Every structure is written in C-alpha cells, then in structure tokens.
C-alpha cells in the first residue's frame, strides 16, 4: 500500500493519521473545530482528543486536485504533487441559505457556523441577539461561548442534543423554520413560519458532509455528521482497520447516515447516525440503538441493507 495522505487535520484526520501512520495535509491550524471545543459529549471533550492525536506528521498546504496517484497542494513554497492514497477529512459544510429555503435581502450579520466559531474564538463579538438555525453539538458549543442572548431555531439535523439541554443552558428554543431575513445594513429581524424574531446575527448551522475534492474515501464529518468526538475517533479506527485488513469489502445500503458505507468483512461493523432508542433492521435482524451513534455488527455477506424502523419512546 502507498502511504496514506489525509486531507484535513481536524480530529478525524488526526486520528486516522495516527491509526494509518499517514501524512496530514492542512492549510490552516491543526485541530479543526475540536481544537477549541471544550463542551463535552457524554463526558468526552473533543479538545482532549485533539491533544491525544497531535503527533501526526503534517504537510502545510491547500489540497486543490486529487487523483488515484496522489494530491496537488499549494502553499507559500509553491505547488507540489504528493504521491499516496488520498482520503478526505474536510469536515462539514453548512447548508446554504438557498438550500434551507431562507430568502429575502442579505444584510450583514449572517454567518455560516464555522466562521462564527472562528471569530468568537479569536475574541470578536458577532451580535447581541443571536439566532442559531440548527441545534447540534457544534452550534450548542458555539452558543456556550457567546456573550449574547441566543435563540435556537430547531432545524432538523440534530442527533444527540435535546432541546432540554439547550434550555438548561439558558437558551430559548423555537420549533420553526426561518423563511425570510430583513435588515438594511445589518440584520434586524427574521420571519419564521411561527412568527418574527428580532436579531442582529443569524448563524446557519444545518450541516452536511463536505467533499470538495470529490474523493471516494472520506472520514469524519466529510462522510457523515458526527456530533460525538469519541465516535469520530471510532469511525476513523474502523476505516483504518478496513484499509489495512485486505479483506473483502461489504457494502451497506442505508437511508440513515452510516459510516463507512463500505467496510472490510474482517472488520464487519459500522457506525449508524441515529439517536438512542432507534429501532434498526439489519438484513433479517432487528436491533435497538442503546446509545446515539451505535456501532452495529454486520452479517457476513457482500451487501447489507440497513433500515430505520422507528424510535422507542
């Protein structure tokens, strides 16, 4: 096997690089979102895991083109081609306002989640009355750092976090859809399907996996939205074991988020992006998720169908 090149040095890239003894390609800081994320999930802090995996070897530069042979990167030293087996760890992207069905005139004060996260961590204020569209670990972690009033508009992407958790932290939660933004220079108000909200900042925090290099092999949030940092590491472990095992590939056909979609028969397990209590059918077997992001064992075959049957309340 060639050396492994992992594009992106967030938590998923760092952990994969450790398991595969791979090389990371990173244009900015090592650690990604979890570098500054001290808000725990199930008692685990992402920032601690980042510290644990920081020893990996890093090549500085922005990957801009990939092939089966390797990847081109651009940096202050110029561009170069690095040979290797390329895996994407680019993390999430925020859904755009058009995808979310948010229209109107776009004044200042609308931020994709990660940009707001970066600005807040650099010591800037992003608004006094902040509305966050999308309740998940990442947006909740941002909210915990804001010195502002925060209202969550629930969105649909959350796996782990209940409304109660946000409310316990003192935030308002509205079950609605943001439809329209208004404001001349700076954002002034939002129209939702449940009424108006006065605000001077809107954070778009509905997340999707991001795969800018169109790579077949991906890890972490570039493959499936993981809100739990320990599951990001577990996912990287499953992928690394699959790549190193040399076993036959098993394909998982699933409507629910699932990682990896192809896994070695020697490893024979995947992580499913559902909440605790979800009933799943795996081939002819039915199981109930005992925790969020359960790891499920696959039957021995070339292709497995995974279905969500419902939720145990």
């Amino acid at each position, binding site marked *: 096997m060639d050396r492994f090149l992992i594009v992106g040095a967030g938590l998923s890239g760092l952990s994969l690089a450790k398991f595969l003894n791979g090389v990371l390609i990173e244009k900015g800081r090592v650690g990604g979102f979890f570098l500054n994320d001290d808000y725990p999930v199930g008692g685990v802090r992402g920032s601690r895991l980042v510290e644990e995996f920081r020893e990996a070897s890093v090549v500085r530069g*922005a990957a801009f083109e990939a092939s089966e042979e390797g990847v081109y990167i651009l940096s202050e030293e110029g561009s170069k081609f690095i040979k290797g087996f390329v895996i994407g760890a680019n993390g999430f992207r925020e859904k755009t306002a058009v995808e979310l069905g948010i229209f109107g005139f776009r004044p200042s004060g609308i931020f994709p989640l990660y940009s707001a996260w970066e600005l807040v961590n650099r010591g800037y204020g992003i608004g006094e009355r902040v509305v966050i569209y999308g309740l998940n670990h990442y947006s909740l972690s941002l909210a915990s750092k804001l010195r502002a009033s925060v209202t969550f508009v629930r969105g649909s992407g959350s796996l782990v976090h209940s409304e109660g958790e946000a409310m316990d932290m003192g935030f308002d939660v509205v079950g609605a859809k943001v439809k329209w933004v208004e404001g001349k220079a*700076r954002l002034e108000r939002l129209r939702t399907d449940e009424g108006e909200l006065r605000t001077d900042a809107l954070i778009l925090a509905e997340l999707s996996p991001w795969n800018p290099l169109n790579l077949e092999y991906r890890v972490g949030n570039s493959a499936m939205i993981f809100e739990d940092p320990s599951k990001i590491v577990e996912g990287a472990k499953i992928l690394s074991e699959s790549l190193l095992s040399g076993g036959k590939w098993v394909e998982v056909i699933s409507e629910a988020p699932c990682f990896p979609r192809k896994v070695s028969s020697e490893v024979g397990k995947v992580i499913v992006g559902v909440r605790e209590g979800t009933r799943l059918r795996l081939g002819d077997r039915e199981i109930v998720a005992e925790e969020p992001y359960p790891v499920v064992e696959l039957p021995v075959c070339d292709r497995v169908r995974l279905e969500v049957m419902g939720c145990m309340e």
Partner: protein
Amino acid sequence: MRRYDVIIIGAGITGLMISYKLSHYKLRILTIDKNPEPGWGVSRAHAAIVHVVQLPFKSLKSKLARLGNPELIKICEELGVRYKRTSTLILATELHQLLSLPFVYLYLKVNLRGFDVKLRGRGYLMREEPNLSKRVLGAIEVNGYAVVDNFDLLYGLYEFSKMNGVDFSFNERVLGIEMRDREVRVLTDKGEYEASYLINAAGLWADEIAKMTGEDIEFEPGKGILVIFDKSVSKRLLAPLYLKPDPKTKGGAIMFTHDGRGLWGPNLRMASGKEDISVDGQDIEMIMGKFSKLIDADPGIPLKAYAGIRPIPPQNDFIVKRSGERMIHILGTESPGFTASPALANIVIGMLGIRLEEKEVRKREKFRRARDDPKNSKGRVICLCNLVTEEEIREAVRRGSRTLQGVTFRTGACMGTCQGSRCLADVLEVMASEMGVDVREIQLRGDGSWIVS
C-alpha cells in the same frame, strides 16, 4: 469649486466604459457614484454574458449589443480580464418548435451577420452535451458568446481610468444640476463642480438625474433573479426556444460563470422599488421548474440566489438623448447593456463633439489569481473553495477595496461552496492588517453594515 472637461454621473459598466475610453485623451474627467465602490448598482448583479441574440433586431439595444460584442472581448484582453468564449444552444423541446427551427435559423442567419449560426440535430447535441434532457429534439447554435468575470472587468475599467488620470468620487450623491451657456454645474452632498460636459450614466437612477434637467421619464424597475450552483452542467449556454419572444427579456438560460459554476436565470418580474433586491422561494421554484426540464443532471448545491434590478424604460429600448448642448443622458440601460457598453460609450463620446487629443496611457496590471494556474502558483491559501491566497486579498485592498464585499467581489473569497465558512475570519484579519485598522472597523458594504464587534 473644481472644474472638469467631463463629469460622468455613475460608475456602473456604462459610466466606467466612458471613463475608460476618455482616459485615453488629454481631458480632466470626474466620475461620481453614490455607492462605495465601482459597479455596485445595476452592474453588480447580472449574468456577465457577452450576448449576441437580442430581439427585436432593429432596436438600438440589439444593434449596440452586436457592435459592442467584439469590442468588449478586446477590452477584456487589453485589461487582462478573465473571460471564456462559448456559444448558446437555443433548444427545441416540442414538436412544433422542432418544425419551426429552420425558419428561426434563417431569421437568425440573416440578422446576425458576422456571427456563426448552425442548426444542430439531436445526435450532435447528445454527443456534445451529454447532460441535455432526452426531451430536446434539436437546436440552433449561435457562436460569439462569452462569459466574463464581471467584477474583474468593472474594477479593471476603474483601475485603468484612475491610473490614467480620471478622478473618482464614491459615496457622493448628486443633488442638483444647473445648465449654463458655457458650462454645467453639479451640486452634490459633498460640494459643487463645474464641467464643460455632463454625462448621465446613473443606471437605475438615471431617470431621477434626468428630472433635475427637466426631462420627464420614468423607469419600471425590473427584477431578475439568478441562482448560482457549485458546478456547471454544460459547455454552452442552454436557452429554451421561445416562438413568441418577450421584448423585455431574453428569458434566461442555464449558464455558467468564468470559474465554471452553474448560473441559472434570470427570470423577470417587477420590483417593488429601486432598492428591492430581495429573493423569494417562488423565484427559485420558477427558475428551477423552467430550466431543469432542459437537462437530465443534478445541478449541484445551490450556493446563492441574488437579484439584479434593471431600469426598463417605457419603450423597452435604450435612450441616448441630449439636454441642451452640454448634457447627455443614457437611459434604460437594461440587458444587454453590459454587452452594448463599449458601443454605447462610442456613441456618447461622438455626441460630445469634444476635441480629443490622445495621450500616453499606462497599462493595467492584471490581477493574478492562484486558481487560474494553481500548479504554477504559490501563496498562503485563505479560501479553499476558490483557492484565494493572502496576497490576493492584500492586493484587492491595495487596489482600493475597503469593504468585505469589495474584497470578495475582486477575489472570489467567501463566494465558494462553503460560503465563507472556512475563510471569513482570515479574510477579515488579512484585510484589517493591510488596511492598518481593527477588524471591528471592517463593514460588509459600508453604511453601518458592521460584521464583528
């Protein structure tokens, strides 16, 4: 009071094109605009297509577009502005449209002398454009189109004019005009000027400038929405065939940008006012419904929808007219005003009747972008989606941009798939460092549009 040979009101594509052309001569010129940067009015939000077909062919706008087409490409070459040549496929999807194709072809062939027009069969279309819908039965291909980096051109015209002696004043509103025998006086919210000639190229606001001189014209503000996707689905522009064309619009198309992103639209509907650049869900539904029938492919992630406003005059055509001996109005510069702008500028300069004495001019330094040739570039990449380097952001500031929007328009930072998620903080910090200010002072587009506190 400062005196000029020519004052131009409006730094949109028309005003800038006149500035650019006059900057080749020994003249004192001032261009005034109410916006903070050039091209932020009507010229900010259109498709940046160099057009060929504009009906009716006998209209002034159609003639000027055909005349302006080759000159606009030449100016892009001279200024080092990015553009891509392409063609349009006018697609027949119904049997009656297919049957009428030979007649439409002949009509275009006769009226578009100098442009290559071809009939295309289904086999050719399926081979050359594999994403086309199986419903497409045939097409007419018209060559001579191009897609331009709009802001590179607008800023290029501005930079060239400025370095060759044209004065620019932004954030300045014209409040009154006084016509005298030997000069024109212009009163603004910042002061007073005197000029031998005054040109009204104020775009959407040109009717209001005209009213200051007693001219009576009223525009309908027409709003067109464009949707931009992360990828393109064709090598050519794809337009449905209309057998009853609307004189107010070309009807939109599936297009792409010079950077290869998909660009769909525009539609046309009346705006509620000149400031109405809002987009709603119906616009998107309408555009998606109309154009998705032309292809059998996923258009990708819709990154942004934006609206442009055009001034539609009562007669649906450009108007170029004088007020007295010393003032010329350019009114109703709707689409294809972008393509027509060089020819429009030639007409206006000819009408001035001014003695033009050529001078040596300095060339504009091309804005170098890593993404145009990444394998032979270097730099600290700030925007991953559009491969924008720190140096490009600094260069945008050095060339005059003081707002986030100005920098993003010039460089493409924050305008890629992640919409600034990964680069906004760095862009602001690099801008602040180059400008020597605190990040908190940077605004989105001026007028209190603060970003961080």
